[in-house]
């Protein structure tokens, strides 16, 4: 009997195991093809050091910007959606807006740090705000009543905010470390390791150049993933019984910072007022949607398969998420290229790659809702119907709105994706994001202006999809 159960459980582990194999196969192929080489020259070492340094500076500045935005988030609910526009917009749209806003300054090393801070600052504020709202009301009331000095009050609050601060600092560090589009659009003079992989792989015939980066990239990913397994996630967003009190001074300062984000949001969309290359946008737009629609449907299937695996107590899906979030996308794209080269240039190869890359993110969105379903309900469902029927009939119904939200987020994520498109379809079927990057990096004034319009169209589509995902009425166990 126990043996039969074990076999059944193993059967449900097959999908995440298969997924993990598909995800890791490109990296294994890369190691097999390029070998294990740690012969790095001084330039690669410089890029490596720069990648770490800019990631640390970006995380620190994002944290500062995020903390500055928190009072405005707390006091005025309308600030949040606008301030988050640069974060939810595709990276290329935000960077393009910043170039138009700040000019030549953006082409220096600090331009990359500023772009990351503008991109991730509002996200940090969101994580910190959720944490702030989760502080017990009685603790805040006691602090208000008994603590006279502002410094002591701040010390108490910051002790409570530690999980959010640590988590957001580290995640922003990882995102900045793996940054690709930002340094690419900012001229390429200060490349990250991710961008250098792309430059070496696509612009130089010699494989030796890339070979020196493969092991370095994978080791960095491993170093980044390990702490992510240990750092506790900050408390989830729960409506607080009592909004923390914020003084007039910090609120005014915070609103000033928020105003800057309003300006960035305006710059993201302003090219829509001057449409250019409208005829030429149709084909890339169609390609982008074809890939996004198919990839997001495949992503939902993977998520359901992960939930089936979850229902039998497997931790594999969670592990998959941690592994995937910290792995280099450039190296994945390069490995995927070697794995599926006969399909190079087609939308099918892009669809497959998007499905694999976006699925863990989508799972991370569904997982909290899944965990909010009472454990006895889940157990009873699995016991009477079996994991597969339970998930496909009952859980998928119960999580319906969450799944639709996740689908829309996956759709938006696929539309925004650039690295895979540049490495898998150049000279073939172009997507809107790849076309926008090509135009924006051409250094030709007319083409750049067309690129501004394309990037604004892309931002609009992505943000409409994300806004739609927020309009869906959630059940108690929603995202």
């Amino acid at each position: 009997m126990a043996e039969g159960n074990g076999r059944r459980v193993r059967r449900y582990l097959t999908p995440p195991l298969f997924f993990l194999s598909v995800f890791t196969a490109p990296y294994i192929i890369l190691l097999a093809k390029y070998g294990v080489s740690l012969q790095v020259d001084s330039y690669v070492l410089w890029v490596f050091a720069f990648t770490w340094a800019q990631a640390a500076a970006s995380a620190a500045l994002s944290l500062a910007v995020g903390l500055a935005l928190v009072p405005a988030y707390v006091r005025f609910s309308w600030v949040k959606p606008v301030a988050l526009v640069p974060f939810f917009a595709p990276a290329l749209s935000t960077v393009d807006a910043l170039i138009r806003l700040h000019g030549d300054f953006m082409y220096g090393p600090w331009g990359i740090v500023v772009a990351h801070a503008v991109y991730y600052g509002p996200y940090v504020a969101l994580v910190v705000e959720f944490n702030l709202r989760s502080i017990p009301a009685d603790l805040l009331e006691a602090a208000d009543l008994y603590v006279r000095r502002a410094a002591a009050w701040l010390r108490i609050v910051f002790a409570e905010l530690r999980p959010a601060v640590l988590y957001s600092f580290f995640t922003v560090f990882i995102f900045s470390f793996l940054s690709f589009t930002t340094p690419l659009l900012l001229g390429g003079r200060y490349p990250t390791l991710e961008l250098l992989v792309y430059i070496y792989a696509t612009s130089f015939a010699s494989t030796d150049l890339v070979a020196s980066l493969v092991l370095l990239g994978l080791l960095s990913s491993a170093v980044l993933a390990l702490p992510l397994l240990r750092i506790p996630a900050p408390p989830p967003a729960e409506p607080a019984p009592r909004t923390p009190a914020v003084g007039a001074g910090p609120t005014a300062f915070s609103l000033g910072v928020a105003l800057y984000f309003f300006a960035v949001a305006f710059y993201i969309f302003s090219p829509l007022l001057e449409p250019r290359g409208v005829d030429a946008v149709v084909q890339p737009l169609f390609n982008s949607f074809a890939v996004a629609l198919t990839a997001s449907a495949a992503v939902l299937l993977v998520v359901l398969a992960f939930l089936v695996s979850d229902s039998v107590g497997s931790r594999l899906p969670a592990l998959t998420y941690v592994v995937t979030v910290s792995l280099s996308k450039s190296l994945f794209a390069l490995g995927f290229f070697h794995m599926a080269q006969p399909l190079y240039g087609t939308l099918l190869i892009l669809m497959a790659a998007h499905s694999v890359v976006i699925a863990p993110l989508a799972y991370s969105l569904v997982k909290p809702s899944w965990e909010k379903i009472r454990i006895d309900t889940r157990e009873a469902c699995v016991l009477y119907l079996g994991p597969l029927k339970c998930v496909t009939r009952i859980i998928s119904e119960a999580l319906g709105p969450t799944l639709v939200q996740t689908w829309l987020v996956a759709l938006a994520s696929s539309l925004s994706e650039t690295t895979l498109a540049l490495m898998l379809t150049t000279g073939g079927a172009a997507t809107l994001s790849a076309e926008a990057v090509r135009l924006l990096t051409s250094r030709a004034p007319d083409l750049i202006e067309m690129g501004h319009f394309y990037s604004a169209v892309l931002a609009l589509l992505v943000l409409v999809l994300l806004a739609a995902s927020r309009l869906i009425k959630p059940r108690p166990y929603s995202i």
Partner: protein
Amino acid sequence: MVFAVAAVLVAVLALQAYQQTTEKRLVIVGPQGISDLGKALAQEFSKKYGVNATFVPLGGAVEMVNELVRNRENPPWDVAIGIPEFYYTVLIERDVLYCPGIKVDGVPADEYWDPRGCVYPLDRSYIGIVYNETALARLGLKPPETLDDLLKPEYKGLFAYPNPVTSGTGLAVLSWVMSVKGEEEGWRYLRQLAGQIAKVGYPSGFTATRNALKRGDVVVALSWFSHAIDPGTPHMRAATSSAFLYREGVAVLRNSKNRDLAVEFVKFALSKEGQDLVDPYNYMLPVRPDAKVENNMGLPQPRSVVVYNPALGSKADEWRLRWQREMAGG
């Protein structure tokens, strides 16, 4: 509903991918800057042979060559046009090309620059100093005549040349500078030249450079003499003291799925019919003496011509890598 739509789309994408790998059609790849000629050749070839030939633009010439190398085992293209003479050996070394060893009547023997018979001559023109005569006059500046003139302070912020990491034009500039100045002096010169670059930076290729010249964002450039006869850049002139001879070719990919048809395309591109399209669609000089030349009648003629030195062929990637590290961005 979502899954049904996705299933239909997957079927369509799979069909497209299947067609790409199996269908009897000719896919011609070439740099973005040669798109007009590529499309015209594809159209005329399709008409003449009753096949489905399409042209796919792919970045700059250098970028294209590297994509051909990367995809050599299973290329989604059959034949490549716009392969630069100074960056074709990489294709030979990596076994990317099929070498049919054909000769086409009417093309003079001295036009064939690949001794192995893999890359066939398509067209040629000159890379040199070009400038916007009206803009310089407005600024009260004399036109530059030599490479060294470009370092003069008055041209600071007015000058550009394309990025050699992606662009054939850019690599031609690098080859020219290294040929006439030697490597050590050449790099010193390029570092000084970096201080003169206009705000737009290093354009990604021919199209981007032409666009920057057209808009006036760049007033002086190291680029094609053809800008001087291009109606799109009416104020451009060329400094004729010296220029670099840029020759480009057409070649069949070894792993093309339609190799025979691709060889036919090469013959067509070198025929009078194909060569007649070069001047009107690419602003280049055809390699056949009997081909029609109208636009290029007024092409400025350089007093001295620097030709590509094949001995420097193996240096191209080393230079590009160094340029990428020391000069890129800006």
